[in-house]
């Protein structure tokens, strides 16, 4: 370091609320992200509750169809953009610097900005329910012509579009920060091919975010212009093309599903070997599989459009590419299984969530392969089969992995252990709830129950009532988790630095520093263990 560098004055500090508003500490920002996600998963869950209430009986019509459309749109929006994505961003923020042996992110202030810019976006989303005409009702994909002003008056839709653009700014700045952090701030000796897999998963995710989210913003700018400034980007009368919107949207939308699962894969690759007492199986294969999923994810978007009028050649291409993704995904699943093989498995709560995730995600992945088959997709397109499929992937995959990760790293974050007993109960409630709610949707879909409609034909009543009752499993699971998190924060068993005694095998940096870590993360940056040459 050159001699011109002056000694820094000790930074001034605030306490209480001001501390949270001005913090640039990646750990506190990570917690802010997690808190934001927590609030929104409850709000999004409440919307799901209303949806299930309405669908309990096809004749009740408790909720007007117009309002129902707002509910499904905002349920998806909140869960995708304001719950799952910020939850993973929060875990990434908290853990990446710890895992690579850094003291903070590369751009601590930008990091704070990435979080705070979500707040105006969230407010716009909430407020949109109360503007004349109500919130957006186009579903989260907002296909024109439904989303044009002609068919969707009122300005809730415009608020939705602007809020999504702001959320995109949050994601892109966050992703840039994470990438530069990963490139520039690793501890000495931590080559890329020795990085923890969660960091790798975020490297791929952040790269995908930087490409995908701006495309969404551009697509939304054009949609907004069509609505408010009379342009014709997607309006056939003016020479535009609604099918083109679908292409642009899904060019973002499919990578988005990997953005929402890859960090979960990353967490799994820490938790599963940790509780099997082994090193992760096939590290290199795991890295290459992540990269392959990231790349292939950009070549498959039109599998959402098999019934939208694309050519048979395009159908075949997108079908084959979609099925190809099963290969790297399979690599990951088999690597987790192999990581457990012959190990002394400890069935802790995080491990249970991971095992549940493997089962549920595999199931959701297989129905995904079914949906990639054009003739099958044409039959079940826009039915509850699709709803069942992506909830298995998103709730059974992403949310289960997130819950596993939160139970796993909670001691690191809070310095206290969560109650294992409550954790087991949470797991079983959520695991049963997911299957109870989302499994029957598959046969409902095959029998012809269409999604995004406020009612259904009477013969589907039994299974819909069954599903609606299953909502309570999820609700109690969520309440139990919330209770556990809040109570253990002050009253849990104090956690050791290596809270789960996993570091004999894992040698992970985050378990080498105290729980919770000091504000500078490490008194001394840990040394990379010697490289094993197998």
């Amino acid at each position, binding site marked *: 370091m050159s001699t011109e560098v002056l000694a820094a004055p000790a930074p001034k*500090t605030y306490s209480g609320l001001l501390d949270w508003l001005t913090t640039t500490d990646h750990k506190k920002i990570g917690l802010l992200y997690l808190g934001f996600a927590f609030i929104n998963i409850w709000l999004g869950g409440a919307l799901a509750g209303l949806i299930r209430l309405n669908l309990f009986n096809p004749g009740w019509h408790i909720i007007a169809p117009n309002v129902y459309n707002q509910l499904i749109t905002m349920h998806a929006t909140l869960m995708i953009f304001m719950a799952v994505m910020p939850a993973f961003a929060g875990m990434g923020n908290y853990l990446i610097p710890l895992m690579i042996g850094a003291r903070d992110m590369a751009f601590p202030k930008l990091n704070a900005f990435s979080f705070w810019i979500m707040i105006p976006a969230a407010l716009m989303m909430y407020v949109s329910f109360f503007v004349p005409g109500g919130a957006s009702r186009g579903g989260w994909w907002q296909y024109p012509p439904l989303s044009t002003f002609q068919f969707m008056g009122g300005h809730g839709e415009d608020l939705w579009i602007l809020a999504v653009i702001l959320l995109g700014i949050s994601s892109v700045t966050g992703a840039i920060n994470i990438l530069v952090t990963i490139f520039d701030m690793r501890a000495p000796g931590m080559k890329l091919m020795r990085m923890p897999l969660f960091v790798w998963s975020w490297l791929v995710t952040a790269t995908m975010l930087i490409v995908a989210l701006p495309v969404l913003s551009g697509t939304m700018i054009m949609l907004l212009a069509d609505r408010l400034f009379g342009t014709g980007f997607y309006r056939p009368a003016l020479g535009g093309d609604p099918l083109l919107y679908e292409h642009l949207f899904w060019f973002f939308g499919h990578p988005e599903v990997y953005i929402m699962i890859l960090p979960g894969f990353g967490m799994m690759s820490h938790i599963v070997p940790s509780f099997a007492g082994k090193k992760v199986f096939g590290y290199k294969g795991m890295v290459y599989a992540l990269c392959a999923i990231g790349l292939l994810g950009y070549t498959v978007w039109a599998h959402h459009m098999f019934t939208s009028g694309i050519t048979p050649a395009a159908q075949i291409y997108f079908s084959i590419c979609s099925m190809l993704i099963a290969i790297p995904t399979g690599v990951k699943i088999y690597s987790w299984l192999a990581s457990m093989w012959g190990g002394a498995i400890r069935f802790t709560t995080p491990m249970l969530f991971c095992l549940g995730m493997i089962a549920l995600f595999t199931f959701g992945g297989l129905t995904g392969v079914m949906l990639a088959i054009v003739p099958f997709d044409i039959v079940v397109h826009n039915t509850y089969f699709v709803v069942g499929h992506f909830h298995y992937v998103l709730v059974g995959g992403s949310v289960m992995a997130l819950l596993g990760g939160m139970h796993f790293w909670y001691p690191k974050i809070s310095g206290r252990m969560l109650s294992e007993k409550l954790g087991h109960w949470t797991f079983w409630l959520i695991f049963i709830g997911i299957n109870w709610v989302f499994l029957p949707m598959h046969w409902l879909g095959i029998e012809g129950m269409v999604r995004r409609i406020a009612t259904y034909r009477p013969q589907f009543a039994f299974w819909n009532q069954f599903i609606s009752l299953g909502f309570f499993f999820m609700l109690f699971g969520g309440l139990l988790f919330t209770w556990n998190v809040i109570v253990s924060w002050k009253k849990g068993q104090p956690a050791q630095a290596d809270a789960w005694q996993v570091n004999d095998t894992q040698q992970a940096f985050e378990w080498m520093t105290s729980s919770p870590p000091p504000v500078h993360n490490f008194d001394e940056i840990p040394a990379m263990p010697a490289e094993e040459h197998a």
Partner: protein
Amino acid sequence: MNTATDTLSASAGHAASGEAAHIHLPGPSFWPILLALGMGLVTTGFFFWATGASANWWFGLGAIFCIVPAMGWATTIAAERRHMDPAQTSTDLRRGFLLFLVSESCIFGSFFAHNIYLRFFAPAWPPPGAPVLATQLPAIGTLVLVLSSFTVNIAHHAIKSGKITRAKNWLILTIVMGIVFLGIQAYDWGFLLQFDKFTISKGVFGSGYYLMTGFHGMHVLVGLLMLGLVYWRLERGDYNNPTYSFSTDAAAYYWHFVDIVWIFLFFTIYLLKF
């Protein structure tokens, strides 16, 4: 291990550099939350304006809450960097900025994709009723903008090697060329609007034309602001370490970016004939 990986890990060393005497951590800052507030206000203002309500207060307040925090933020960073390794921080900032440009390209990319898709799949292109765009004047604009990429490059190198007067001269020339380009664009817009009565809502051709050239023009404007800022800082002489000056790098990169996007834009919108 391949070479790319090695160069990346070569820079990883600085994470440990804090251990030596003290651990430097960035202090708390009000700027990020205030800037987020400002952007929220501007977005809300845009919403009210675009939906026909009055939005002056939102825009006014929003502008204050965007500009003041942005300036405060930049000043804070400049001050902080005096306590940090200048080579490393400028590498971080440059990488971050290049990634930002990647994301910007992807916004432009969605507009280009829209345009090119229609050229392949629309029943007729250019659509009936679309005016034939004159290419002579925009060609001159293109030439000016391309040349300005060279002049900014000279200015950039001059700053790096400490030749401040030389840098200022070439910077002025670049800024003038940028203004000439914008003037030509404005003339082009005015001509189309006035004589061809060709507006953004006259069909998808016009929508795309105005969106792409307008969005690009906004970027030229931002680029000019950045160049102006560099000039102002040269005038004040506050580049104490020009080798690691990030703001000059950023302005130069941004200007090249704006130039490259325009070359594609000119080719796609003005020259491509199918």
